[in-house]
């Protein structure tokens, strides 16, 4: 399986339809009433960062902005709070993509963590400037939980790319 550039296995290209479907599913999972657990992962952030690294031509700052605005509406938070964080996360992922994709999966984790953690902190900062209260410390567990899902998310989101139409064990594809 090729989850970094060091592998020689060839993958099928990611289908834009599938990418959009995963974005929709992540958005639906963020809609679950999970406010009781502030550490619950931010699925949209995870999927945006993932696809910004893997296929920046389909998911980029524009997608991040639209999803961020929708998250602001459903969360009842300030307009632009999620949008700003997601846009910056998406851009940072895109810039770091060339580096991240050369690393093995465990080291990718270490590189993704700062992106998602700073994104979460940015939202705290925005709300702090707006004069709102600071969230409980469990909120800062949330980026770590989100990043911990990076490994399973990689396999799940790339599954259609691993499957080949006519499997031949002699060929690397």
């Amino acid at each position, binding site marked *: 399986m090729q989850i970094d550039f060091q592998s020689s296995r060839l993958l*099928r290209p990611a289908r834009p339809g599938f990418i959009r479907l995963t974005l929709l599913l992540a958005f639906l999972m963020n*809609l679950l*009433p999970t406010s009781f657990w502030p550490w619950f992962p931010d699925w949209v952030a995870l999927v945006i960062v993932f696809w910004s690294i893997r296929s920046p031509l389909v998911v980029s*700052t524009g997608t991040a902005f639209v999803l961020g605005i*929708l998250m602001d509406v459903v969360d009842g*938070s300030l307009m632009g709070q999620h949008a700003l964080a997601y*846009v910056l996360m998406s851009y940072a992922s895109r810039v770091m993509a060339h580096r991240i994709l050369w690393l093995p999966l465990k080291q990718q984790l270490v590189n993704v963590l700062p992106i998602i953690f700073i994104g979460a902190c940015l939202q*705290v900062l925005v709300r702090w400037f707006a004069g709102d209260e600071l969230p409980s410390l469990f909120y800062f567990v949330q980026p770590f939980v989100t990043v911990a899902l990076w490994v399973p998310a990689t396999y799940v989101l790339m599954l259609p790319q691993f499957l080949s139409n006519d499997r031949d064990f002699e060929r690397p594809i």
Partner: protein
Amino acid sequence: MSGLDHQPPPLFKQGPAPLALLILYVCTSISLLVLDDRFRYLEPMRLSLTYVTAPLKQIVQWPVIALTTVDEYAVTLDQVRQENTALRQARLVDAEKTQQLQVLEAENQYLRKLLETKRVLGARVQPATILYSARDPFNRRVILDRGTDQGVIEGQPVVDDQGVVGQVTRVAPDYAEVTLLTDRNQSIPAQVVRNGLRTVVFGTGDGRLEMRYMSSNADVQVGDWIVTSGIDGIYPRGLRVGKVESLESDPNGIFSKFILTPAAGMGRYGEVLLLEPVALPTDRPASLDRAADNATGTTMSKKKRKAQ
């Protein structure tokens, strides 16, 4: 070889420069933030986007509601019996209180008529259910299952069986957002039951309430009940706000601060009542206005609008 019949990636056609897009979106986000936080201009936009997100929200809510229903269905007969007995007893107590209340209300109305004052307590109430609390961890808010379709308006007070829960701060067609009293930006005019001392109670953000800037010799004791004073024209008079829990004195000795535990079950799931805001005249009599006051008057009302 149908796996490779795709177009090669567009190496040279990559759309607008990513950095330009980044700058565009960041600037848009920041201006949206300012417009929403300082001026609250974006409510119509938010409302129209709710029409997009509402069906998605309902799809996601469905399994959650189904699970809750299954959970309710699975309670044992014993639990139901116990609850039934408790409710019967509570009803007896309430019935007696209601009778007393009817007498008192009749008497009160008679006296008020005598005084030719307005009726203070709002009569129309509407029950609602708390669906869930908002995912936003920076505010204390809950979502109710009633919206503009059921006649809910912004600013309505929300109470439960124990006391004041908060105030409706945003309404969509099918749900309403209630900012809890414990939110940091929420305040409520109140008075001490024991001696009628007027004060303002603020939310602290950590699930408690406080009375700030009380004079250090104010006659407030630990254990005093604080109720709404009704002078804001929103909350009816005499609803329970909280109980004084402790006193934090200022080292300078000018002011003291009292910490209160809220009376209502903050953030608990369950049934609440939406009250009609009491419509008292909020404008100052024209005779009191001077030309110099007009400017400050407008800024005051802007601040007030934002605070609501």
